[in-house]
């Protein structure tokens, strides 16, 4: 039974509003009275996903779905896709540009950090089409 479902669009290369969707999602979950530990883990995973959308995709969205025993966060994008997911999941591996690295991003921690913070993590990608990440957090 879904208590709430909401979508948050994320624009490619917009570093000014990057993080806004994650902040909104965090506030929403606080209002719903979700456990602080879950909010913390979800916020971190969500921010990583949002930044990845900004850096790597041609645009995408975050979809938050809350039901009575689980929160689901989906990141969907249109973009280049990931040719080798195992390699992309390796900490320290990044394809981020020099400009993005200068801002302190592109340490190659994002996907691994999402997987670590979610209770379940699924990623699928098609080269030339886009990437979908599903993260589940038990309540």
């Amino acid at each position, binding site marked *: 039974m879904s208590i709430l479902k909401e979508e948050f669009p994320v624009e490619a290369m917009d570093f000014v509003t990057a*993080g806004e969707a994650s*902040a909104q999602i965090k506030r929403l979950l606080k209002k719903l009275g979700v456990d602080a530990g879950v909010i913390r883990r979800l916020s971190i995973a969500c*921010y990583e996903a949002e930044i990845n959308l900004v850096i790597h995709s041609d645009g995408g969205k975050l979809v938050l779905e809350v039901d009575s025993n689980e929160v689901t966060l989906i990141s969907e994008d249109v973009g280049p896709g990931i040719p080798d997911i195992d390699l992309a999941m390796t900490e320290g591996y990044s394809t981020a540009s020099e400009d993005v690295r200068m801002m302190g991003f592109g340490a190659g921690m*994002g996907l691994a950090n999402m997987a670590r913070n979610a209770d379940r993590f699924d990623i699928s990608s098609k080269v030339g089409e886009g990437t979908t990440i599903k993260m589940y957090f038990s309540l």
Partner: protein
Amino acid sequence: MTVNEAAKIIGASILTEGTDTSREVREGYTCDLLSWVMAHGREGMAWITVQTHMNVIAVASLHDMACVIIPEGISVEADVLGKAAEEGISVLSSRLTAFEICGRLTQAGIGAC
């Protein structure tokens, strides 16, 4: 130690208006890689970084940090400070290097995670 007390130890001014500077600093951290800090940041941290763009505030806020400390007198843009105030994150500016800030805060009893 509070944010206010930490600021005094490193001769820092508080750039944000209206944030709670009586907040407890639990530990210190320094790193300029935001994605690294996303992975290792914790609640109540004083985070020292030379990065001054908007995403620093997002990372500090998501981790519910105590404050962000900008070393070497690097200037911070007004819209970033406005965002920090809105999120309740104090931003401190010190003329000292990150190295010296860490040294002084450690000597004053702030631990690392």
